[in-house]
């Protein structure tokens, strides 16, 4: 298992490098000039200086290498410094000072960070500001979905072709087919416009400090969580049902019943545990997709998370931000693929990778 993990980690490095190169080349080979929408009155030599200031003066391969160094070497240093000095973990951890900021009066040896062209501030700082909103909404939706999907899947499989199973299958099919940009708008029309129960726009500046503000937070999270959870529930409960059905007819279930075990023990202790193996990997594989899918939901409810940040950056032609964010999504996908495979190996002793 350890060997396998190490091997997979080593394979992940060229994969990530290739993805980084793909994203870089896609942005690089595309027609369009980042300074094209500056006024035409700017003289060409000033325009050239502006391009240099954006970091475009050098050849392609050097810029790619610089970006890699920034992403994998400099940004982690900044993150460690932040973790040990300003975050809530700071009192426990020793103070570190790896990162040398670039300023007007610093030495030549400073660490340039990835700068956003829109804000002229480091991309990772903005990402760190945006991530809590995304994690709150998406994370809650994912948890809600898992909590609903597993019992639904188990019961539909246990009573196959009952009315509950048929209704469940239909609802999951609908949840599968209705895209979030429609279900989101539909719940806004129903619950926000007609019934006036929930606010249609997510207020990210809202602070929770007493019971009323907590209730408001719950209220404003309800609709985005509902939309995302519907989608995720339908995927997971389909898998749960199929996996339970595969297991329910196996010999060990009959043996357990023949031994005189109660139905609860047979289903919950024996069948459920075995059926959870593929479902756990599906849950792990779904996590990065949720970040991608949340782009649309964030757009509908105006949650300013990382999905919204990506859309704004694409519209503003902010190439460093787009490149970094897309790569972060890719890293998430690769990591959770790995996690899913390893989990499968740990949970299922029949699987041998070596």
């Amino acid at each position, binding site marked *: 298992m350890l060997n396998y993990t190490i091997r997979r980690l080593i394979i992940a490095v060229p*994969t990530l490098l*290739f*993805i980084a190169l*793909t*994203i870089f080349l*896609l*942005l690089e080979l*595309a*027609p*369009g000039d980042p300074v094209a929408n500056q006024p035409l009155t700017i003289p060409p030599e000033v325009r050239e200086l502006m391009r240099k200031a954006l970091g475009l003066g050098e050849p392609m391969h050097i810029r790619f290498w610089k970006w890699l160094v920034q992403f994998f070497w400099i940004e982690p240093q900044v993150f460690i410094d932040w973790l040990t000095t300003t975050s809530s973990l700071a009192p426990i951890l020793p103070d570190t000072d790896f990162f040398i900021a670039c300023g007007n009066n610093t030495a030549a040896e400073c660490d340039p960070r990835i700068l956003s062209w829109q804000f002229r501030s480091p991309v990772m700082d903005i990402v760190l500001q945006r991530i809590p909103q995304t994690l709150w909404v998406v994370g809650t939706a994912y948890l809600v979905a898992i909590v609903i999907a597993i019992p639904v899947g188990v019961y539909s499989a246990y009573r196959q072709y009952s009315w509950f199973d048929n209704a469940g299958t*239909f609802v999951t*099919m*609908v949840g*599968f*087919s*209705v*895209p979030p*940009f*429609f279900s989101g*708008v*539909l719940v*806004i*029309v129903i619950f926000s*416009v007609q019934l006036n129960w929930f606010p249609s726009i997510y207020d990210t500046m809202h602070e929770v400090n007493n019971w009323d503000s907590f209730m408001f937070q719950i209220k404003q999270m309800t609709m985005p969580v509902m939309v995302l959870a519907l989608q995720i529930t339908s995927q997971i409960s389909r898998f749960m049902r199929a996996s339970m059905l595969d297991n329910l007819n196996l010999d060990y279930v009959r043996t357990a019943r023949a031994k005189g075990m109660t139905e609860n023990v047979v289903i919950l202790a024996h069948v459920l545990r075995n059926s959870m193996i593929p479902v756990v990997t599906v849950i792990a594989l779904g996590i*990065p997709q949720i970040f*991608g*899918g949340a*782009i*649309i939901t964030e*757009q509908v409810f105006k949650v300013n998370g990382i999905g919204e940040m*990506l*859309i704004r950056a*694409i*519209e503003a*032609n902010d190439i460093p931000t*787009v490149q970094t*964010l*897309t790569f972060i*999504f*890719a890293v998430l*996908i*690769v990591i959770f*693929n790995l996690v899913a495979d390893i989990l499968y190996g740990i949970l299922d002793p029949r699987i041998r990778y070596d």
Partner: protein
Amino acid sequence: MTDATQLDPANEYKPPRNQWLDVWDQFKKHRGALIGAIVFLFIVLGVFLGPLIWAHDAQFVPPVVDMIKLRDTRPIYTVLWESGAKVSWAHPLGTDNLARDYLARMMAGGQVSITVGLAAMTLSLLLGTLIGVLAGYFKRLDGPLMRLTDLFLALPLLPLLLVAVLLFRELLAGALGPEGGVFVLIVSLVGITSWMQTARIVRGDVLALKEREFVIAARSMGTPSRRIVLRHILPNVLSPIMVSATLGIATAIITESALSFLGFGFPPDFPTWGRLLFDAVDRMTLYPERVIWPGLAISITVLSVNYIGDGLRDALDPRIRGR
């Protein structure tokens, strides 16, 4: 021995049935799939033949005075709960803010959405089948092609689609006109980013088929690889390909609508269901019907296609069929 040739009159001889008739019989038993197929057929006919009956131009904006008079008409059923609503039988689904007939726009939008779905599905099937067959049949290509598939599966597709649309839209619009350019761009992007599942399934099936006796027999007779693939292997992997075809239509329609919804799809005067939804969101408090109709159209189309896929999977599986 003669008894065997003498047929029992009660058990009279039936000619062997065509395999596709069996598939159709099984498909009919799946009620959801049958309803899905009828609904999908109805939508396709309505969208492509409807404009012949409802001969309004989806792009027609009346002259200014008429436009102000006719615009923002509500659908005819609004009268049921709001007697003062501005409705007219000339526009059963109402008009938009430029007095364009909404029913005609829905039909025009459906034509584009469904065409994009079918074209992108065809492209992704061709790519997926080609790569799957090559990887499964030729051992030397298996490693590299499957690594390529894994790489594509690890790409964050929606962000990359958005970036690619934004970056290449102008270029293609210049070469092929604004609508044609975006059509080619979206079809090829959706096709290029959705072939991986098909390729994996096809490869698995080809790997198993390659070792079967009929393929070995064909090879021992000196049949060239190209003909083995075309005559013996491809017909046998048709069923997984058909199932992924239906799922491919659904994905393509949703992806196109998502791109249009985020404002990265077709130009504003060129309706697709996703674009109509996107344009209507800003004023959905006043005119919720303009959001609901295109959204319903997308959802019902995708739902019916998914049900067809479900039924096809059961019908094409010989272990389930005939039971």
